[in-house]
């Protein structure tokens, strides 16, 4: 009698590239990534003596539990949508700028400066667009040094943009705390506080806590997505992202495109800063202008979760906005708000780890079946 026997000694787990992952595989991987992050968070909560189910319920409630909560979520999400879009366009061109936070702060400095300087003497319908434009200009200028250095000198953009972040953070603190600039409230003499911007340079109200910031952010992000998909510039950037050599060979001006995309990214972050100023903080308050992990870094997380799609970034940013809002609710329940940061990071790690399975498959190679008689 002949029997086929599985040879365990010869069995090997092999990694094989695959063409395109089927939608069910993609969905499973993404679901497992999210599930994994939630389980990790639950373990941490349980270890800290909290009830994971009730904490998760309060996170969902504080993000989506009521129209009021949802309106707050949208307000938190608006600048994140813009920094996520800013991340997608540079990462797609294989440029790993991580300077979104610095550019956001530069936009916030510029927009609050314009609002404080000339906002008082102009009607809102004129002042607000000017304030937003100033934010765009501020972010663009802040991205100029890393962009030019990367395009023409080949300077590592990860490090230069990072340095620009630190410089912006200290500069904001300097403007409000270290000087008696217009950003510092001269009414308040005891403690250093940021000057509130004139009320008619604040974003018009939409519903509950939400204002038109979410509409502006989503609209601009969708417009950028459309332009990237349909214009020649967008095509050239895609080619550069795939292979700089191919782009050169095809006659695409690489340096000019790199400057363009990094400046566009900076402009989007600058607008995010202006949205933050005119909607959330209504001043250049150093502690709340770019809270927690940073709106820029959160945007990078969102872009990675959305697998570098601007359109997908919008719903992901709204979920992330809910998570950001949950920080306060958690503190009320005596849960450390750092948990939200850990969850964000774990989600990012699991999702990028999951992308491995989009590109490769694991196959158990059984070795030969041994026939024994």
């Amino acid at each position, binding site marked *: 009698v002949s029997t086929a026997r599985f040879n365990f000694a010869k069995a090997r787990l092999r990694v094989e*590239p695959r063409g395109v992952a089927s939608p069910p595989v993609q969905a499973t991987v993404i679901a497992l990534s999210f599930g994994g992050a939630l389980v990790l968070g639950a373990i*941490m909560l349980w270890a*800290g003596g909290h009830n994971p189910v009730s904490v998760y319920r309060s996170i969902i409630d504080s993000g989506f539990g009521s129209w009021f909560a949802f309106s707050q979520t949208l307000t938190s999400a608006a600048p994140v949508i813009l920094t996520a879009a800013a991340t997608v366009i540079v990462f797609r061109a294989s440029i*790993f700028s*991580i300077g979104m936070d610095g550019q956001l702060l530069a936009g916030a400095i510029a927009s609050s400066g314009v609002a404080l300087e000339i906002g008082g003497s102009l009607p809102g319908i004129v002042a607000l667009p000017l304030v937003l434009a100033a934010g765009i200009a501020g972010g663009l200028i802040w991205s100029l*040094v890393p962009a030019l*250095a990367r395009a023409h*000198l*080949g*300077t*590592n953009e*990860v*490090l*230069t943009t*990072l*340095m*620009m972040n*630190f*410089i912006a*953070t*200290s*500069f904001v*603190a*300097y403007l409000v*705390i*270290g*000087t008696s600039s217009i950003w510092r409230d001269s009414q308040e003499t005891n403690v250093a506080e940021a000057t509130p911007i004139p009320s008619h340079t604040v974003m018009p109200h939409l519903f509950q806590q939400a204002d038109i910031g979410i509409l502006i952010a989503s609209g601009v992000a969708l417009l950028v997505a459309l332009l990237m998909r349909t214009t020649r510039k967008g095509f050239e950037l895609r080619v550069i992202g795939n292979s700089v050599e191919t782009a050169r060979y095809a006659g695409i001006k690489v340096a000019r495109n790199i400057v363009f995309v990094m400046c566009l990214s900076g402009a989007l972050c600058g607008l995010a800063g202006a949205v933050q100023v005119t909607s959330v903080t209504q001043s250049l308050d150093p502690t709340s202008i770019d809270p927690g*992990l940073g709106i820029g*870094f959160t945007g*990078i*997380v969102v872009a*990675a979760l959305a697998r570098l799609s601007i359109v997908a970034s919008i719903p992901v940013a709204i979920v992330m906005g809910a998570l950001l809002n949950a920080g306060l609710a958690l503190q009320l329940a005596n849960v*450390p708000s*750092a*948990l*939200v*940061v*850990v*969850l*964000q*990071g*774990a989600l*990012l*790690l699991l999702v*990028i*780890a999951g*992308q*491995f399975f989009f*590109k490769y498959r694991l196959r158990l190679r059984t070795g030969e079946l041994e026939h024994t008689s």
Partner: protein
Amino acid sequence: MNHSGVVQFLMVVLGAGTPIIFATVGETISQRSGVMNIGIEGVMLLAAAVAFWTATSTGSLVLGIVAGGAAGALAYAVNAVGAISLRVDQVVLGLGVLIVCTGLSEYIGSIGGAHPLSTQALSSTVKPLLHHGPAGLPVIGPLIFGQDILVYLSWVAVAATSFYLFRTRAGLWLRAVGDDPSSADAAGISVARTRYLHVIVGGALVGVGGAYVTLALFGAWQDGITAGDGWLAFTIVLFSGWRPWRGLVAAYLFAAITNVGFNLQLLKVSAPSQLLTLLPFLITLVALVVFSRRGFAKLHAQPGALGVPFWRESR
């Protein structure tokens, strides 16, 4: 500034430079194998929190340092799995490590209910070995003989790593794996094993750097206590051309710039502290741009396969 002021300033620089040196050497070893981790700052924070928690709950500084090193090795091991086995983009991966570790450090810092880590204190910090004898000599006494054990160990780590990289066969293999993994693989060196090993050892050194911040420099915990040391280490690795001795010099230089505020206070010159904190980053930015001619990477021996996953089939 008088005589003792100079010594006092140099003592501060030696202390502040030590965690940066450990982190720089650790990341240099990791990057020499071709794997980078932009999340050093987070890893140092996590190690600092774990070390402080261990030291306060066991009363042992040695255990605290070991725990900090282990936390660093573990965090770098996560980075290794992503970079080596899962072939993930290393910038996004490092960012993920940064976020998780920073969050975990704050989480650890806040547990303990009514007595979170930030309210606790060490009964004693890591102290200089000698107080008398040679340490009593003028100027060089305190600077050379009056340091704690970890300062000396940081010098040993630099010397040993430099010797290992450039004078031993295993170091040659390591550089081969980082420069040209395909050739190393063809020569029979296991790329994955070499990378895992060196990334994890490097992580342990980064962890010791983090532990030094809480156990020796401050003797306390607060969120974000490493205050940019990890970021500085990451830039120094590049500036030093992946060479440990240059890394040591750069680490002290950066520590001096960061502590220039202390220096100015001694000189009784007042400058806005917010502008002083941005000084090292501004200098780094300028230096990055000035020294970034194309070919700089080649000139400074950047590992050829830095940040590039190895995939034998796609050779």
